């Protein structure tokens, strides 16, 4: 691993702080080429739009994790300035929904379908939020990657 001076990353962090100051709760430079932003759900689209147009970002992935009290969604973007910029938001567990970002990044179409299928997060405005990972006979309302999900041996999950 290279022990760079983090000059490039600090430039990115300073620019983001200057342009998006009130939209971001916290910004963290973990190591070279890894920047994390924490923000609220309402600010997500504005931030992703900025990152795409002003930071020349492409979308790598959308990760969802179940933290028992809430869901954490992380939108991973790779900037043309050679750094990963990951935006974290938290969603309430009882009503996990958020606006879809497929209008900004078309590749998010598949990523959001995966999160919806395995965690049950609703992506409002998604053009076609249907199953992608689980088979068509998988019962509704069963989200296998949630921490409290246990397979019910008596139910039919397909096959």
């Amino acid at each position, binding site marked *: 691993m290279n022990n760079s001076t983090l000059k490039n990353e600090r430039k990115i962090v300073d620019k983001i702080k200057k342009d998006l100051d009130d939209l971001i709760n916290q910004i963290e430079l973990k190591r070279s080429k890894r920047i994390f932003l924490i923000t609220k759900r309402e600010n997500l689209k504005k931030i992703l739009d900025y990152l795409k147009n002003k930071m020349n970002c492409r979308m790598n992935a959308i990760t969802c994790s179940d933290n028992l009290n809430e869901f954490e969604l992380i939108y991973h973007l790779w900037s043309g300035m050679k750094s990963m910029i990951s935006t974290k938001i938290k969603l309430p567990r009882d009503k996990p929904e958020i606006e879809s970002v497929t209008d900004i990044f078309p590749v998010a179409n598949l990523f959001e379908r995966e999160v919806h299928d395995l965690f049950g997060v609703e992506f409002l405005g998604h053009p076609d939020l249907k199953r992608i990972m*689980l*088979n*068509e*006979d*998988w019962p509704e309302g069963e989200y*296998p990657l949630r921490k409290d999900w246990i*397979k019910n041996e008596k139910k039919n*999950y*397909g*096959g």
Partner: protein
Amino acid sequence: MTKNPSKNIRKTSPFILHFNSGGCNGCDIEIAASLSPKFNIEKYGNLLEASPQNANILLTVGPVTLKQVKRLKETYNQMPEPKCVISVGSCTSTGGVFKGLYNVKDGLDNVIPVDVYIAGCPPRPDEIIDGVKKAVEILKSKRK
């Protein structure tokens, strides 16, 4: 090794259908490699022209994901008698590394009857060809 084995095998020349039921592809690559001139599985059976309607041997790979169960049964039922099923790899036989995961059936014999098990993760092309040879023998005995 019998004298001139290919003379006997050519009499039957079975069609071998390769079916992936949700595996990692490791065994598929070794089956593809067995098509190369170095191993030459086509000496024992026709792999590239097989379809469910004309296949005698079903070469299955993968721990059988829940989605594939229906299609696997359909494919098996479409094959004409006598037929023979080979389970290639550890995960196809017992679930292997995938045993207990939420979307797998833990092995082929939970879905269709199996005649030959080939162990390995993945098995080498020679081991796969060895399994095919045994399946051809079983097929011959089923024909009688």
